[in-house]
């Protein structure tokens, strides 16, 4: 079954995942390729849109792993606004004024925040003095080592040489990751898809668009406004708060999804009402 899924395109054709951005890098090209394949195992490309790799998951993860190669570390985007939404005009409509993208800047960390993130990324072995609870709880394995070692383990366990398979086939390597590495990659991929694009993922807002145009950050425009004539709080029809959605449901739940909720509801002791 596994071998039957092998594709025919050369691996080099898929090496571009996440390689478009500049900045410091921790992962090697091989690691980035494997990580991209794993990202697509979590959130694959299909008829509805691109997968996580093309949406920048690898860059997002590499940005996190190299956060401390920037000053301040690239961990907490500053804000409060991006340049994606305008300031509201006095009448509640969109003005022509946009803020700069303040999420492109990052906030300094406090001493305690910095210590925590250094331990998380570099582990006890990469932190002078180690972690505070190494003797009680065991040493902290840093995320950099966890992912690098996890990818190496998966490559070693994968039944084919990774250079011999295309990226679609390579997605199967996700199942060969050690549990902790797999869990972390899954978490980081989901974060990459749905976080602000300034962190490196959600490329071209593709993560938000994949879920039928989740609007993401809306400030400083927001959704409601106060009518200067009446003092009433009003909706903007294109994106209502108080009133019903004004556009048709882009993708209703089909029988498969309904069935999943029915099963979960039964497991949880819930009810189906119709």
């Amino acid at each position, binding site marked *: 079954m596994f071998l039957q899924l092998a594709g025919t395109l050369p691996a080099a054709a898929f090496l571009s995942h996440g390689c478009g951005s500049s900045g410091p890098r921790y992962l090697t090209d091989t690691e980035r390729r494997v990580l991209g394949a794993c990202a697509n195992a*979590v*959130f*694959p490309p*299909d008829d*509805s849109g691109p997968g996580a790799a093309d949406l920048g998951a690898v860059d997002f993860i590499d940005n996190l792993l190299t956060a401390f190669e920037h000053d301040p570390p690239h961990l907490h*985007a500053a804000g409060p*606004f991006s340049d994606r939404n305008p300031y509201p005009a006095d009448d509640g409509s969109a003005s022509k004024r946009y803020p700069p993208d*303040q*999420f492109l800047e990052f*906030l300094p960390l*406090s*001493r*305690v*925040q910095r*210590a*925590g*993130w250094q*331990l*998380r990324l570099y582990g006890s072995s990469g932190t002078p003095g180690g972690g*505070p*609870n190494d003797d*009680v*709880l065991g040493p902290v394995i840093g995320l950099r080592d966890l992912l690098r070692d996890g990818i190496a383990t998966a490559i070693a366990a994968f039944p084919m040489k990774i250079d011999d398979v295309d990226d679609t086939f390579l997605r199967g390597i996700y199942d060969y990751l050690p549990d902790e590495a797999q869990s972390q990659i899954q*978490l980081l991929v*989901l*974060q990459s898809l*749905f*976080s*602000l694009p300034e962190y490196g993922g959600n490329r071209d807002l593709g993560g*938000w668009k*994949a*879920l039928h145009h989740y609007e993401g950050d*809306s*400030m*400083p425009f*927001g*959704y409601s406004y106060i009518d200067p004539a009446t003092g009433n*709080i009003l909706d903007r029809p294109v994106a*209502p*708060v*108080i*009133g*019903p*959605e004004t556009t048709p*449901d882009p*993708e209703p*739940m089909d029988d*498969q*999804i*309904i069935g*999943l*909720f029915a099963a*979960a*509801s039964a497991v*949880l*002791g*819930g*009810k*189906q*009402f119709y």
Partner: protein
Amino acid sequence: MTTTVLGNSSLDRFDVLVIGSGASGGAVAAMLSRHGQKVLVLEAGSNYFPGIDQAAPQPYPQFGNDELKLLHRFQIQPDPIAEPRTFRHSISDGDRLAVGDYATFAKTVGGGATHADLKTPRFMPDDFRLGTILGATATAGGASFVDWPVQYDALEPFFLYTERLMGVQGAVGVDPQAGPRSGPYPMPPGAAMYVAPRVAAGIAKFGYTMFPCPTAINSVPYDDRPACNDCGFCQSHPCVINAKGTPGVTTLRKALLTGNCQLRPETRAVRLLVDGAGTTITGVEAILPDGTRGTFTADRYVLAANPVEDVRLLYLSGSGRPLGNSSGLVGRNLMLHHGVNVLGVFEDQLHGHRGRGSTHAFTDFRKPSDRSQPIGGIVVVTTVPYLIQQALTYLGQFGPLGVKGALLKKMLRQARPRDRLLSLSMYGEDAPQPTNTVDLDPAVRDIDGIPVARLTYRPLDSYEVAAEKFFVPKMIDIVGASGARFGAQAPNGDPPSSGHLMGTLRFGADPASSVCRPDGRFHDIGNLYGTGASLFPTSSGFNPTLTITTVATYVAASMLFPGMPERALA
């Protein structure tokens, strides 16, 4: 982020030192500094309110519509790898069951009230006299219900004062359980969530009454702050435009603007210094932003971190046992609110990512005097707006059913949480139990090598568990009556993940059965005060922030005018 000294940096002698800058600390600082007291506030967390101490207009804070940094990268929450807590159900579990972020609470200028969605109902009059109401059953099963030493009537003017200070929107006469008021809310209710009328119709079928929940978010411009524009990032997110009445834009800011207050962020109080007799605090040892240590002094000291960190500090300051503990009750009666959630799955487009995530509530499950039903709590209607969090929840819930990869992607598209899910969340009374405690873990340390807090907590079958079993089926039926196709209870947190911490420094008149006096002062230590949620003898069934702020204001007023605190409101 500002690490410099804020407010009046020239002050070098203080009447009062406040540890913590959240709902309690901000309120204490505001009241005392307004009356000319020189106040120093130490805050362990960072400051993300540039210009907090400068005249209006206040700049925007350094937050954002940014789920990643707020919910996953610990911008304001303690990072559990640097500042963990440990947890166990009882002492029979040994030293601990687990290490992590248990009952965690924001550590930042403004505290937990910075990112709470700030629903601010008052506690109801019966909440203050559950010892009397429950009578012989007040101690059933190991519970320790008692009356509060201060009743609703005495606190009512302080409630009103606090509502005006924070800027609370609400409507009078809509909550059937609400106590009497001496004045209106400062603002009318804001925009209702789309789903509110549908749920209102659903619960009306059972004879219940839904109403716009009082909330400290501007529905109109108020106090030099703008109206909320319903950006949707309200639950667990600070406000981006200062429309939410958090301490950083209300109490704390007002304190700093008096010129009588100084705030030191990133300054961790790690030990109270005490005189030889053990009855007077002589200073506070703190770790400064650069990691060095310093000592700060004042005439009087106020613990206003939170019910867990207050107790931790008392333990760190004693010699093997906490300061101020002649009653044996320091750290006992920890309460977390027994939060239970029922999810409704709808086939409509609820667009819950727009607007405040929770605008309406009902209190029909909160009738302590009605002995025909258990003591529940307020039920709030909540949407599910955040993508990362919900994707992880879907994986957790549906992963065992084979949901991953393409099917996960399809599920996130079709069952968009913002459109399909609605939660009814009940904050049920959490019975006080002396065996639910905070103390120090014997071995686990924080990043500075300081022992961390250990929580020992188990819910009580005869109260909160009984309430859960009684009310959850009703909540499921309500979501069905509101149009959901499915309704089911979401798994509970263990310990409860309500985000509400209460108790541990119970106040009362009797030194044998309480840690602090009715005015907040420790029975054992003449110049040390507890405040806010730590003092609560019982938890009520309501979101606690307004009552925390109100009690803190009452304590500060009592410090100013002993026995006549209402004079401070003039």
